[in-house]
């Protein structure tokens, strides 16, 4: 990786028109040991995570955090409001129990877990993002229509412009092109 490449060049892109081709090509990129690369597909392809060697998504951790927070919040504020700050005596029953406000906790659990999931997904994906170098590739819009693309970052330790270009054609990629930063 030369110095000027890291400044000017974002990476190399190649296109595929069939799901099977891009899946097998992704397996080859993974097996060749590239680390900083990505596949762009108009819809999620079944098996692509394994083909890219991605680990399981970490979104569930944030969902769980949200859910636990929601449940505790629901418990806490029903207790605070009806038993602590202004004790309400209703029919001589205990001031607070986990049973009567259960629907409130239940809904709070779901609400906060959904927040954790929704915002967690955007957080882990580093979105929203104003711009990304891949949009500099004039044909990139096809990746949301019917074309599958593999992009290898110039910052990948194995990246060597000519060699990687050859590698992308070898794995079946068409229209190998450079993407500028």
């Amino acid at each position, binding site marked *: 990786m030369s110095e000027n490449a890291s400044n000017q060049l974002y990476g190399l892109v190649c296109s595929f028109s069939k*799901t*099977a081709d891009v*899946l*097998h090509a*992704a*397996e*080859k990129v993974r*097996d060749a040991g590239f680390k900083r690369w*990505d*596949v*762009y*597909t*108009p*819809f*999620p*392809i*079944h*098996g*692509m995570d*394994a*083909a890219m060697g*991605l680990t*399981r*998504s*970490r*979104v*569930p951790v944030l969902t769980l955090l949200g859910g636990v927070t929601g449940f505790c919040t629901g418990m806490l504020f*029903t207790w605070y*409001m*009806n038993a602590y*700050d*202004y004790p*309400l005596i209703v029919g001589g*029953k205990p001031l607070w129990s986990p049973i*009567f*406000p259960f*629907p*409130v906790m*239940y*809904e*709070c659990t*779901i*609400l906060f*877990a*959904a927040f954790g*999931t*929704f915002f*967690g*997904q955007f957080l882990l*994906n580093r*979105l929203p*993002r104003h*711009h*990304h170098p891949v*949009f500099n590739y004039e044909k*990139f819009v096809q*990746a*949301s*229509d*019917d074309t599958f693309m593999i992009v290898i970052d110039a910052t990948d330790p194995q990246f060597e412009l000519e060699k990687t270009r050859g590698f992308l054609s070898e794995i079946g990629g068409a229209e190998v092109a450079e993407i500028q930063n």
Partner: protein
Amino acid sequence: MSHAPEITSSARPAILDRIAPAELPRRPLVENNRGFHWITEKICRIVEDPTPTWWKVLFLVALFLASFTLVGLVYVVSTGTATWGLRSPVNWGWAIVNFVFWVGIGHAGTLISAILCLLRQKWRTSINRAAEAMTIFAVCCAGLFPVFHTGRVWMAAWYLLPIPNSYDIWPQFRSPLEWDVFAVSTYFTVSLLFWYMGMVPDLGVLRDRAKQLWRKYFYGVLAMGWRNSNRHWSNYEMAYLLLAGLSTPLVLSVHTIVSFDFAVSNLPGWHTTIFPPYFVAGAIFSGFAMVLTLMLPLRAVFGLHDLITQYHIDCMTKIILATGTMVGYAYAMEFFIAAYSGNPFESFAFINRAFGQYGWAYFIMIACNVISPQLFWFRKIRENHALVWIICFFVNVGMWFERFVITVSSLANDFLPSSWGYYSPTIVDIFTFFGTFGFFSVLFLLFIRFLPLLPIAEVKAVTPQADPHHGDTH
């Protein structure tokens, strides 16, 4: 070296090669072998083509109709809730009926997007976006009624949020009405998040195709910089699955809690344990009827026959048939339990429902909800879309009457005959309710015009060519 052969061989037991089972063809979800580009074009063109004249006309009509609700609500706020025909003993009239009706309609959207997703019913993909939009708009319409029913709508913050009143007393959480506030607001919020998250990749498609500047900005901002990266899809799919998992207990809880508004009280005809499942089945029933009421005309107008196929319509009508039968069973079971309980008030409440002063409403309900969906047993009827539309219309009428029968008949004739009464809606009730159809239509028409009506990415993902093993010989 490639891992592909390992993946496929591990997924396929060796015995299959020896016994060579017959391949049963599945009905395709996208007909006529349409490609990815065709799907993009078809769905995006709905938004990108010049505004059709029918849309403009309908939009004006819908706005006009929506103004009825506005005028009705202004009148109620300025004069008082008695203008809704509410007087003792019936203090829950059309407002609560309409609330339950609209919330019920909303249930199909979440059912399609959440429960059918978990059950891997792939046919949901073509209809889930519109159904989710319908859910959100229906909940908007529903929310109007209880908020204005309280009379002093400017105090809404005090009963919608846990805020102490001027004596420092907080809301008390033993009340099902307070549970309902949490259930409906959570339902609205989570449905909105789910709908929006599902739409992000499709908004990216619209952004990539945008020619005009305002479209680039509008869809660009809404798409949040989505770039179809598989590293993103991986988190996105997990989040989608989790939201589906969260929405499933949510959708079941919402109408359960709505039914608690009735079931937790001690009124004969309301105080029954069958209410939660019966309300949920009814909600799904009416919701699917509304989905078909909306989607059949859209399918015809936009020529979506390859995307919303006869198979989709069959599946939906069968769900209507199943839930309609469950609702019919619940009606019968209510009668049985009332008789079996030996409680004279309970028995009276049900005999009075069917043969009392609101008997006419009861039999409209039975005819529309129990009898009319039974026609969906017949394939000929399921394939006659005009008839399907009419039956779905009847189902919606019937479900409105179900809520009317439950709410009004129990209140009008309770324990003391000396306090019985007969409730009739006023012109304000009628205008306000029909106006909400205008309000709903305004929102839905805007949705059709500016947002992707069908989920582009999800529809592509269920085509045969999206499967990486499509065309494999083994």
